[in-house]
């Protein structure tokens, strides 16, 4: 090995190490900051009452965020319920059904959707969906409206990753199934989809991550009310929305409580990420099994 190669090698290694170390430091700093700012809340209210409390009246000393936790979960699962069938159907179309030329147009179009800023999704939701949902009853600002907007936002993630997973299935599987006399649909449903399962699940979990973190578009269409939502047509508030709506003028314990909301949100996302990692690992094992 030439000496110059050795130097570039070492330089690259060190650079990567410094980058990695500093990014982890920043992450740790953010977590410490949020936790330090949020912890004083729990001198005024117990962790249990904070998480399971039904009343959020921070200037009145009541700090219960259960309605927001439920709001976040409701919009996330509402969005996934709508986006999963649509997204997988679209991925199948892209990966297996559509002719090459259609795919060449559709795939970039789907990827373009990821780049649209969330405030634009929110605006479209506010102008088009809110009046439409109002026709169903309620005032239009609701979990349903928010789920619909969120569905549009997570669809591109689900479609593009599921499409990749479906296309990664070895060609021999499909050819084998067809050669055995399976119909096209049988091939898709019993061979392609099960083989690509881990990739599809990963796409869903990644979509879920985006859904939980979405803030701006949600504030615009969900109504932000602090009541416990009882139906999909009720307004609600998400955890992210709680922080964004109230941080402007919050001070003292109120401000701490918003940071504490951030702690809960962080825990939420850590749990989701561990699920993603487990699912991805499983996928790798499964792939290894296929090879052996």
């Amino acid at each position, binding site marked *: 090995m030439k000496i110059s190669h050795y130097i570039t090698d070492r330089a690259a290694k060190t650079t*990567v190490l410094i*980058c*990695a170390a*500093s*990014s*982890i430091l*920043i*992450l740790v*700093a*953010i977590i410490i900051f949020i936790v330090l700012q949020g912890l004083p809340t729990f001198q005024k209210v117990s962790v249990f009452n904070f998480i399971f409390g039904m*009343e*959020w*009246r*921070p*200037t*009145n000393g009541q700090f219960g965020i259960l*309605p927001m936790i439920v709001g976040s979960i409701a919009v996330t699962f509402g969005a996934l319920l709508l986006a999963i069938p649509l997204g997988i159907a679209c991925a199948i179309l892209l990966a297996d059904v559509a002719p090459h030329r259609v795919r060449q147009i559709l795939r970039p179009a789907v990827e373009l959707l990821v780049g649209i800023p969330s405030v634009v999704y929110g605006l479209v939701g506010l102008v088009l969906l*809110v*009046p439409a949902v*109002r026709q169903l009853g309620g*005032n*239009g*600002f609701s979990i349903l409206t928010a789920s619909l907007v969120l569905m549009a936002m997570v669809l591109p993630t689900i479609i593009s990753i599921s499409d990749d997973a479906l296309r990664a299935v070895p060609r021999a599987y499909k050819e084998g199934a067809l050669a055995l006399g399976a119909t096209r649909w049988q091939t898709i449903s019993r061979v392609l989809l099960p083989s690509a399962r881990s990739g599809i699940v990963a796409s869903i979990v990644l979509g879920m991550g985006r859904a939980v973190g979405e803030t701006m578009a949600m*504030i615009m269409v969900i*109504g*932000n*009310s*602090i*009541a*416990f939502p009882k139906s999909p047509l*009720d*307004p609600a*508030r998400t955890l992210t929305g709680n922080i*964004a*709506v*109230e941080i*402007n*003028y*919050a*001070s003292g314990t*109120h401000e701490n409580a918003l940071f504490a909301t951030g702690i809960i949100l962080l825990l939420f996302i850590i749990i989701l990420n561990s699920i993603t*990692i487990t699912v*991805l690992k499983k996928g790798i094992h499964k792939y290894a099994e296929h090879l052996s």
Partner: protein
Amino acid sequence: MAPGKIIRRLTMVVCLAATIISPVILSGCTRGSASVIIAGSTSVQPFAEVLAEQYMILNPGITIDVQGGGSAAGIMAAQSGTADIGMSSRALNADEAKLWYVEIAKDGLAVIIHPDNPITNLTLEQVRDIYSGQTTNWESVGGKKAGIHVFTREDGSGTRAAFESLVMAKTEIMARAMVQDSNGAVRQLVADDSNAIGFISLGLVDKTVKAVELNGVIASREHVLDGSYKLTRPFLFLAAKEPTGLVKEFIDFTLSAAGKKILDTEGLVTTGITP
């Protein structure tokens, strides 16, 4: 996970963290040596900021630092001297009235509805019942048969605090009310929904919404000034003792015709020349 993926992910985290942290660092740097510190009510804050901005243009080299914190914090800061000027958006109680203070303007709160809504007048009790959730249909207050869509401001907002103390008395704004985080957003959503009701600063009422009469009194600058319109609150500047020097000069500027004109254009009601 492939190493490439790890690096990609780490780079993403670095970028994200940098975006989050850099404004914090930058804003920390801009806090130089301030000559006058103003702190208190978040309702008065935006107006004080405009005044400070204009004053700093007219008097280069002087820094006026405006901070929030709420009326209570403003009164305390003036008392203790941590701020040169405290801001309050409520009248002082007997104890606090020992401080030196001056009313820089009055702020009116307008209860707004959609222009197509046939209602023109509501009593204070009717507004309270709508916001507490006792009244849920426009029919019960003389309107058409339709559910009332109630919009309010977020907890911690000065406008909400004023509405609560002037209208709600001891009752609470119902949890089902929809929350928006600015006067502008409330106005926009009320303008978009024929069954909506909201409240905003009087100065921000425009043609897209209708301000209701309260107990038969039209919400107008004149009625705020003569005291017949009930939803008003004073905006106060206060200090530990009679101000001198730079602080006095800034307060004089606020109370001058130029200062009043700024406050009037920003939507407040002063005794100055009507715009």
